[in-house]
């Protein structure tokens, strides 16, 4: 990782240097977005950076992502979208698609800890979000779908990641369009949805919401311990190729140290001639189980590890202890969902 976060990582021949222009369409969209956190089962990092061509043209970043944690299952839900460049408000479409898909998947998890998503339905919901937004903007309700396709069209890839035993995980993934997912295991890249067509010239058509393919094939990916799940847009995919080139090497090296969100954004912002599309990548590391805890009767020691606290608290609740009793055990705040700061409560 470069010491100078102001300068992009150069891979091969860099793109031309210039000062980015401001976006000229409505709907605020920052040049980059970054996020990341950890749960008991996963660490996740996500970043989305505006492509050099869009920076040069004054076009907003049309990629977006959304992340969520589902507390009762410790599942991770995520979505990545790439707004179609020909659709002038596709950055809004990308955001709508991501957030709607994540919400739909969280609801599925509410109903079942081991969901079997009807992916076509999930994707249709994401597509409908675009049409509904269009309905508020278009002249008539009948033209909303057409308006959405013309101005909001976006690809989408969505995933539910469920924790497994011993640092493994299972990911359920589906998509519309050419955004994709990979498994990075020991430096080697494997694409979840298989390779593209070989030979001939490149054909550039892409399926995008609000259209959904008649048949949607979801993929089930079993992540071995130590593997990383990556979900990203074609701005990453085309540069990555089959992962054997310098981009695959640079990303694998950068991800090996589990970068901070800001470091991931910097890594994604690499400069390489002809690769100037928006880039978005979400990385998920299934976490190994914690070391066996010391004697359970020593709360101060447990308090040093907030995730251990939460698990301990959950076990105590299951055992029928009241919050007051938890307080006595020094775990009161840790018992609340997402209350990581509670680990500092004194007994």
């Amino acid at each position, binding site marked *: 990782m470069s010491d100078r976060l102001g300068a992009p990582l150069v891979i*091969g021949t860099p*793109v*031309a240097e*210039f000062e980015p222009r401001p976006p000229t369409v409505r709907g605020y969209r920052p040049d980059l977005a970054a996020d990341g956190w950890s749960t008991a089962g996963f660490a996740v990092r996500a970043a989305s950076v505006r*492509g*050099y*061509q869009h920076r*040069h*043209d004054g076009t907003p970043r049309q990629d977006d992502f959304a992340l969520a944690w589902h507390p009762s299952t410790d599942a991770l839900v995520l979505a990545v979208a790439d707004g*179609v*460049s*020909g659709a002038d408000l596709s950055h809004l479409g990308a955001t709508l698609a991501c957030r709607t898909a994540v919400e739909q998947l969280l609801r599925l998890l509410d109903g079942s800890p081991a969901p079997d998503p009807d992916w076509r339905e999930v994707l249709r919901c994401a597509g409908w979000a675009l049409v509904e937004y269009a309905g508020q903007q278009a002249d008539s309700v009948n033209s909303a779908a057409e308006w959405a396709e013309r101005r909001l069209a976006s690809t989408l890839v969505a995933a539910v990641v469920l924790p497994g035993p011993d640092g493994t995980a299972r990911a359920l993934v589906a998509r519309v369009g*050419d955004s994709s997912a990979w498994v990075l295991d020991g430096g080697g890249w494997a694409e979840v949805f298989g390779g593209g067509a070989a*030979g*001939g*010239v*490149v*054909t*550039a*058509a*892409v399926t995008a919401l609000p259209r959904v393919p008649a048949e949607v094939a979801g993929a089930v990916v079993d992540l071995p311990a130590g593997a990383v799940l990556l979900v990203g847009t*074609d701005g990453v995919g*085309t*540069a*990555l*190729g*089959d992962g*054997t*080139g*310098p*981009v695959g090497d640079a990303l694998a090296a950068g991800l090996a140290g589990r970068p901070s969100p800001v470091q991931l954004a910097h890594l994604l912002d690499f400069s*390489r*001639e*002809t*690769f*100037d*599309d928006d880039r978005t990548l979400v990385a998920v590391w299934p976490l190994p189980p914690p070391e066996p805890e010391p004697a359970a009767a020593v709360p101060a020691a447990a308090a040093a590890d907030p995730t251990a606290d939460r698990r301990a608290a959950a076990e105590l609740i299951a055992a029928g202890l009241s919050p007051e009793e938890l307080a006595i055990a020094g775990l009161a705040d840790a018992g609340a969902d997402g209350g990581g700061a509670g680990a500092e409560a004194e007994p």
Partner: protein
Amino acid sequence: MAENLGTVLPVYVVADESASMTPVVDELNAGLTALHRALLRQPMAAAKVRFSLLGFSDTVEVRLALADLRTESALPVLSTRGATSYGAAFQALLEGIPEDVGTLKEQGYAVFRPAVFFLTDGQPTDEPDWRETYRQLVNPETNRAAPNIIACGVGEAKARTVLDIATRPEFAFVATPGTELGLAIAEFGVALTRSIVASAVSAVAGKTELVVERPESFVMAVDVV
């Protein structure tokens, strides 16, 4: 396998160098210079264009082959000579394009469907022999790198012939009758620039194969037929 260097768009400008082009060849050259300058202002698009310039009359002269215009100080100059053999022009493309695509792939590039800008001021002198070569060139069944052809007719060019050359009706342009030929060619140069840049931008996003902008004084050939 070569290192993955991205996707490029091969662009071929195929210009009629027959004797009747003499009054307009200077303006065509000026148009190409303007194109060069405009492309240099779009460094990212320019990085994805590989530019070839072919002049044809009885024979074909390759003036520039698969050039990265960022590294060219000036474009070669077209001249005028001889008759108007469309067959020679299409034969050169039929042989040259698959070879060029192969070269680019060996270098590590993926290749968008090539774009040919075909500029002519007159009727072919090899009618109808050129048509068989043309059919082979644009048939994607036999030529995997079959190009999109944008045909631009100036001067005495017949709309029917221009339509026959363009691979889609919307890719056919003829100068409006009464338009100054020099002006028409200058506008063609600007339209050409925009088309290349727009195509390359679309290529980035990977959503469309080709965008063509219509110059104001040009009309769709369909409108004239």
